[in-house]
């Protein structure tokens, strides 16, 4: 529930942030960005590299303090990291010195919860991500996709109000990625949370989201917010449906600028006789 009359679960207002480079040059990562996320919604932030989407997510998480602007969770200011704002990173952040089980229990142990509760939450979450049987394995023994599940399980175990995901499937191959996307939606439908998911993959954004926020770069700002009216539950083959293609066409117009000036395939030249 949002307090103080705010309709949003998670919100940022007037976020401006600049990076100062080594040579003194300044890059405006985000320019006056305001965005609200509804309770229980799956929101995707879509944009090319360098558009500030990761920076925005990190500001939401509290890992970065913006030069200007505020972040609100349930209507209250929330500028620092907090277990209510769980984050799954792009790279593998599982602690290699802990087993799968110990990784998942990490956040719970920090809170000094009673042992039985920790055990039951951990085993439930490990089962939810499909890693039952691998509790005693070390991350080095697991594939990339499995480590990603440990990441997700670990964050889910902390029961955050909001789940922030920074291109979590970016390093996976297409088949694993597609499977993980479907499993994420499955997991999300069982234990609904507010999700903010950053990606540069148009298909991924449309498939997963209730709404897609399109960002542009230099400076980073919101170009458009599009509602995805595809029905749930969404099976994987929705990606090749007409409705999907329609939405994709709409989104694609936003990215035409990105490809302006890029030379396309030259017409075939007849070989000299």
């Amino acid at each position, binding site marked *: 529930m949002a307090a103080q009359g705010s309709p949003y679960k998670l919100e940022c207002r007037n976020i401006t942030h600049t990076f100062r480079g080594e040579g003194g040059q300044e890059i405006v990562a985000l320019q006056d960005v305001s965005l609200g996320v509804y309770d229980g919604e799956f929101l995707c932030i879509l944009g090319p590299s360098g558009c500030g989407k990761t920076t925005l997510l990190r500001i939401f998480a509290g890992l970065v303090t913006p030069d200007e602007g505020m972040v609100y969770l349930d209507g209250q200011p929330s500028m620092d*990291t907090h277990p209510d704002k769980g984050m799954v*990173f792009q790279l593998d952040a599982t602690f290699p010195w802990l087993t799968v089980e110990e990784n998942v229990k990490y956040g719970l142990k920090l809170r000094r919860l009673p042992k039985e509760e920790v055990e039951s939450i951990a085993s439930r979450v490990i089962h939810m991500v499909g890693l039952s049987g691998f509790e005693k394995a070390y991350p080095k023994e697991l594939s990339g996709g499995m480590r990603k599940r440990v990441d997700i399980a670990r964050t889910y175990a902390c029961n955050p109000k909001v789940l922030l995901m920074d291109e979590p499937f970016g390093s996976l191959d297409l088949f694993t990625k597609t499977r993980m996307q479907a499993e994420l939606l499955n997991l999300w439908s069982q234990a609904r949370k507010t999700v903010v998911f950053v990606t540069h993959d148009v298909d991924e954004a449309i498939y997963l989201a209730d709404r897609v926020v399109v960002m542009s770069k230099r400076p980073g700002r919101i170009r458009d917010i599009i509602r995805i009216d595809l029905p749930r539950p969404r099976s994987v083959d929705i990606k090749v449906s007409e409705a999907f293609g329609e939405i994709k066409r709409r989104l694609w117009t936003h990215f035409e600028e990105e490809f302006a000036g890029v030379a396309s395939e030259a017409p075939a030249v007849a070989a000299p006789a």
Partner: protein
Amino acid sequence: MSVRSNAKPVEAKPKRAEADTARKRTIVSICSVVTVLTLYTAISNSGLVNQVLIPPPQAIARTAVTLWTQENLPIDILTSLMRVLTGYAIGVTLATLLGSLMGWFWFIDGVFDPLIELIRPVPPLAYIPLMILWFGIEERPKIMVITLGCFLTCIINVITGVKNTPRLYIEAARTMGATNRDLFFTVAIPAAVPYILTGLRVALGTAWAILVAAELIAAQRGLGFMMTNARRFFRTDAIMVGIICIGLLAFSMDRGLRYVNRRLTSWMERREA
């Protein structure tokens, strides 16, 4: 199964290839040692060299037995061992404790780093005259100098390890609610264990180096003392016995450490053990 394929089976590593290389390497190492020993024996017994300066292995072996049974070799060994172990244990414990704190808390680093860097350039042995004046000619000066040497060698590894804690792990832990204290104990230290173990290993070498020199300078018992004594009577065979003893002791301690290293860091991904 004797098939070698290039495809990596899911979740398994090609252990057969690793074991083969390890076995071959052991054979090569054994051959290397045997060759050197054979050459030495041949040269010494050839009649072309002065057998007082290059004692033949037979003489060394005989002298070893005599020293062990009729003279004070066991006491010398124990005395040297005690000095090394005491100095080493105190030195690396202090280095690990202080180094961890210095690597994490800027204030502690600021206080101790300049002091350590000022002391470091002076070889620990140079402090022996001062230590003798302060503490007399008993065990204390020798142990203190060994402690100092181990401390200095080990601490730089510990500090590096803690300072190099991957930011990704720190951020992941923070988003799960870890405080600075939590981060220190549950992320920084475990992540630094490989570095700390490296520090332990190099400090061991330092310990033996300083011990022998310290005993050569000022001792009434011990292997270094035994060797200085032997020099006065041109007993190169006894000197060799001393060298072999030191070599065996240092070698076994290092092997022991390597074993501990492997067990404690079994979670790491490695090219070879």
